């Protein structure tokens, strides 16, 4: 899926791989090869052991909704076309202190604990973004 955004990422030497991966359909973030800690946003130092033996590794791309809002008034026309839209703050399965925001794609209203999976969205050839898609309810 390709979508336009007025506010675009600002790729630099730390983050260009992150945005490229999303454009290519994958969520990655900084992963410490020494202690195993994940850091998001992707940064040049491990927040846990302060080493720099880091790589942008793929995460499973699953998590659960921690909090959410319903945006009725956005300030840019590209997002207004979705309004009202739900913005979910998702706690990643890999690590409980990583919260990643994104628009929620779901037929059902959001709730805490709702299972979601990342839905990368291509903005340009080298820039991607993400939404969260509700997982089918199990059981």
């Amino acid at each position, binding site marked *: 899926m390709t979508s336009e955004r007025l506010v675009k990422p600002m790729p630099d030497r730390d983050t260009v791989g992150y945005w490229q991966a999303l454009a290519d359909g994958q969520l990655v973030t900084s992963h410490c090869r020494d202690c195993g800690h994940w850091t998001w946003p992707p940064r040049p130092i491990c*927040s846990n052991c302060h080493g720099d033996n880091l790589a942008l590794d793929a995460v499973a791309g699953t998590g659960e909704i921690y909090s959410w809002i319903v945006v009725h*008034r956005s*300030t840019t026309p590209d997002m207004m076309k979705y309004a009202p839209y739900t913005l979910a703050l998702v706690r990643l399965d890999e690590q409980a202190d990583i919260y990643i*925001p994104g628009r929620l794609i779901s037929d059902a209203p959001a709730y805490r604990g709702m299972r979601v999976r990342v839905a990368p969205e291509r903005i340009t050839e080298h820039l991607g973004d993400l939404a969260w898609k509700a997982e089918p309810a199990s059981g």
Partner: protein
Amino acid sequence: MSGNGERFPRGQAAIAGIGCTEFSKDSGVSTFALATRAIRAAVADAGLDIGDIDGLCTYGTADSVSPNVLAQALGIKSINYYLDQYLGGSVSMTIIGQAALAVSAGIADCVICYRAINGRSELRKNGAGAGPARAPWDIQFKMPSGYMVPAQEMAMNARAHMLRYGTQHEDLGRIAVLSRTNALDNDRAMMRKPITLDDYMESEWIAEPFHKLDCCLETDGAVAVVIVNAERAKDLPHRPVLIQGAAWGGGISIANNGFADLAESPARPIADRLFKAAGMTPKDIDFAEFYDCFTYPVLSQIEGYGFAEPGGVPDMLKDGHFDRATGTLPFNTHGGLLSEGYIHGMNHVYEAVQQIRGDAAHRQVKKHDVALVTGQLGYVSGYSSATILRGA
């Protein structure tokens, strides 16, 4: 021990003068002009001259006139202290604390802290119009997804508080109504039409759980204050307002690893240091001017600065605990950013000084010796800031 606030130069610097412009939707002039007008008024109020100024401090989002440009305009040949702190409302009280450090250390003798903003007619904080002049690095991980503006970020945290403590929309609404009530007799206030809880509940959604009336105003205007050594302030016209304590630093944001719940108050990490710096406890505070870019941060600060147990604010609101005339902790006595205007928090200092001097007319609170004045909670930047002011 270092770093716990006890070595703050308690009460050694004082606010000796205050000045402001009109607060409006369109100033018709530049932020440069607004700053000079507020500074001229503040210096006159202090009984000083422009030539006495040797320090200039401001903050913002690179959306206003900077100290070096002002120094040139004011004819200050050698400025002894300056600060142009990026990061917006979360550092609004940082510059007051920094100015106190500079003055008490003798680095500078007369420091102006100012904020000039054309928040409605030029650079709007909601990203409309010309948009932010400069975006922080971490914003790129929110904005593309449509997580654009502080209203949305604060609403996300309000939701977390609702989920944990059962906080209701009406609880936030009572903060909006109280703020508006306090603005009704304030000549500076942009919003002087009464509102009810029903009006609040019926106001349109902006970012649910925030209604329109949860959100502060967009304002053009400026505020400046004059900070000098406390000894010198004794010889100036007004009751000196001592900078009793200040603290700034660590908050709670989604890009900070290592915290458990966004329902926790980002004021918490600086609160103990603040009160140690001042040699006080929350019981010593007569009134508060809480940074209220939205309703929910007020609730979170009442908890975080130690005036209520987490989840305890709604009952206090219903009991009239915060009513200006009769409550035990009046807050936002001028209507706050929600109803007076949004000078990025510096108008809170202006009001606190007027109250401490006893110059607040119909708004005057009964006990007015000690004020807590705060900056924005550190959700967005990861910083919070606050100061305690005391009448000498």
